[in-house]
């Protein structure tokens, strides 16, 4: 092998389509594009097998193949002479490839159709540069990593760590992580989702870089990149998401023509046109406590070393988040000496204007959901908590509350184990900041808070 395969890892991101040439036993050549070539080890690559097609039939007859890939950093083309070895339908290589494809499928409503049938493993017999596809000579336009500047320096990691250590509440911790990712690493669009009240659900707790905020939005396990990461408990990196989505869209159309009825499409979270996404699970002793997602409009923003470092960072962040959750549960009513964390968006962006200094707060009992002035605010446990607080204030004139009394209130129906009350209170605070900033929950110390109103509130209950 003339060029070590491991030096070409950037070329395996699927950013620029690969070309696959095969030949049938009766001598008819076939050439096509390929969605995914995966680096396996210094002597092997894996090709995605998604649909029964001519290439797959050819390989069954004649194991020789030629794949051409392009390095997205240098634009150098590489030709890989291959020999088919085996198909894998399980194991780490298959799972790595399947996750990426399924994440795209979940955005496109194509789960079950747009899927990986097998990871076909090939021995790489030779690697040669393609003469007619040379590296760029345009040095004035280096790609972010082609410049040679590492994103994850020891200094940047130390700075992030110091910022995280200064956080005294879950709220400031989550915000510090996302602010740090932007300030020290340049990741301008990120979000943290934590385990939701319902099993198999994640709730967005903190976001950065999105005008609409998005706190409170939910992702089911298996949906989108965050849901896929949580389900698989593994990081997912998608480069060239736009191309992947267009490819999936072509499959979507083709599937409909063949009589399939794909599921409803779900909107992409965050950026309207993300081209790179990286999601890492926040795992503590094997338990998913949340997911960190980072997005970029740059097609190849996250390199292999970024994925590895963020994955490592994810385990550290997960422990920090869980420790803070446990600390906040401890119910020691200490004053908190830090300033409120900066909000990650302008509260005025999404808030609905109040009418004549009055808010109409309606609890829909059957759906356990609260609407303010006819607009959805929140549901489930945070909705029950807000209703309790507002009712107590109207009935008894109370403004001060403790987490402990909420825990003891059977009507709130908190789970006995891991109630995540503090996380739910934070979610409620954030939603109020976004949607009606004149109703506020203000921390008074660990385990204590006040309800502050700058408006009259009319409470209504409906079935």
């Amino acid at each position: 092998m003339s060029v070590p395969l491991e030096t070409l890892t950037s070329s395996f991101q699927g950013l620029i389509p690969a070309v696959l040439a095969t030949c049938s036993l009766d001598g008819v050549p076939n050439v096509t594009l390929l969605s995914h070539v995966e680096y396996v080890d210094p002597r092997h690559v894996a090709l995605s097998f998604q649909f029964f097609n001519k290439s797959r039939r050819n390989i069954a007859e004649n194991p020789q193949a030629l794949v051409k890939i392009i390095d997205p950093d240098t634009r150098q083309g590489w030709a890989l002479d291959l020999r088919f070895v085996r198909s894998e339908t399980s194991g780490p290589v298959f799972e790595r490839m399947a996750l990426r494809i399924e994440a795209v499928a979940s955005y496109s409503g194509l789960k079950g159709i747009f899927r990986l049938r097998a990871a076909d493993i090939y021995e790489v017999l030779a690697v040669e540069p393609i003469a007619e596809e040379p590296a760029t000579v345009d040095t004035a336009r280096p790609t972010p990593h082609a410049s040679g500047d590492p994103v994850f320096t020891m200094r940047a990691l130390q700075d992030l760590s110091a910022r995280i250590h200064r956080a005294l509440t879950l709220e400031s911790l989550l915000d510090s992580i996302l602010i740090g990712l932007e300030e020290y690493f340049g990741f301008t669009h990120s979000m943290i989702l934590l385990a939701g009240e319902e099993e198999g659900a994640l709730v967005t707790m903190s976001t950065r870089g999105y005008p609409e905020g998005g706190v409170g939005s939910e992702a089911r396990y298996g949906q989108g990149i965050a849901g896929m990461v949580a389900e698989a408990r593994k990081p997912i990196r998608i480069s060239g998401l736009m191309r992947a989505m267009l490819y999936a869209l072509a499959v979507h159309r083709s599937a409909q023509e063949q009589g399939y009825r794909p599921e409803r499409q779900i909107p992409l979270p965050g950026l309207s046109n993300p081209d790179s996404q990286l999601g890492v699970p926040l795992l503590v002793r094997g338990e998913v406590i949340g997911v960190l997602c980072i997005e970029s409009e740059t097609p190849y923003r996250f390199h292999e070393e970024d994925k590895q470092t963020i994955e490592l960072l994810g385990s550290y962040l997960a422990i920090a988040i869980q420790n803070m959750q446990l600390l906040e549960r401890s119910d020691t009513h200490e004053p908190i000496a830090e300033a409120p964390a900066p909000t990650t968006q302008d509260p005025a962006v999404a808030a609905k204007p109040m009418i004549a200094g009055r808010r109409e707060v309606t609890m829909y009992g059957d759906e356990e959901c609260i609407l303010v002035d006819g607009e959805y605010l929140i549901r489930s446990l945070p909705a029950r908590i807000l209703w309790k607080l507002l009712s107590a204030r109207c009935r008894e004139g109370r403004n001060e509350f403790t987490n402990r009394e909420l825990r003891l209130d059977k009507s709130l129906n908190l789970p006995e184990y891991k109630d995540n009350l503090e996380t739910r209170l934070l979610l409620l605070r954030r939603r109020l900041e976004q949607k009606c900033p004149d109703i506020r929950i203000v921390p008074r110390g660990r385990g204590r808070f006040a309800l502050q109103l700058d408006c009259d509130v009319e409470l209504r209950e409906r079935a």
Partner: protein
Amino acid sequence: MVTGELATFLSGQIDIHIGTRDASLRPHSARVSAVSVEDDREHVVAFVPALGADAILRDLDANGQAALFVGRPPDNLAYQLKGSFTGARPASGDEREYIEQFWDSFLEAMAVIGFDRSTFRHWPVWPCVAVRIRVTAVFCQTPGPGTGAPVA
């Protein structure tokens, strides 16, 4: 063999690759800068950059078997043309403008899906070898459950 619809499709903004094979059935491929359809709708000419044409020309001379992938990047609509080699010649100076405009239209299509025009502009397009192929079959190559179906 090349329908009016396919001929229109082959008029620009497409990604093209030619596939061949040697005597041991080892496949080769090359990027194609441009393609044109002859008036008889049976023959197409693939313009292959000379720098990458050696292997496929050897194969075509030896056995004549050719495949062309043609795909439109923004919507992934794609076809596979199978055919037999009928001859090759250096592309003439008169054809250069057509080839360069065709390649430029491909860069335009790639720009639609987020690849800056400068991404592939440095790849050589000229000089080219004009590879003439008689089309014997056309298949759908659009990704999805229907891929590989013959196109009438």
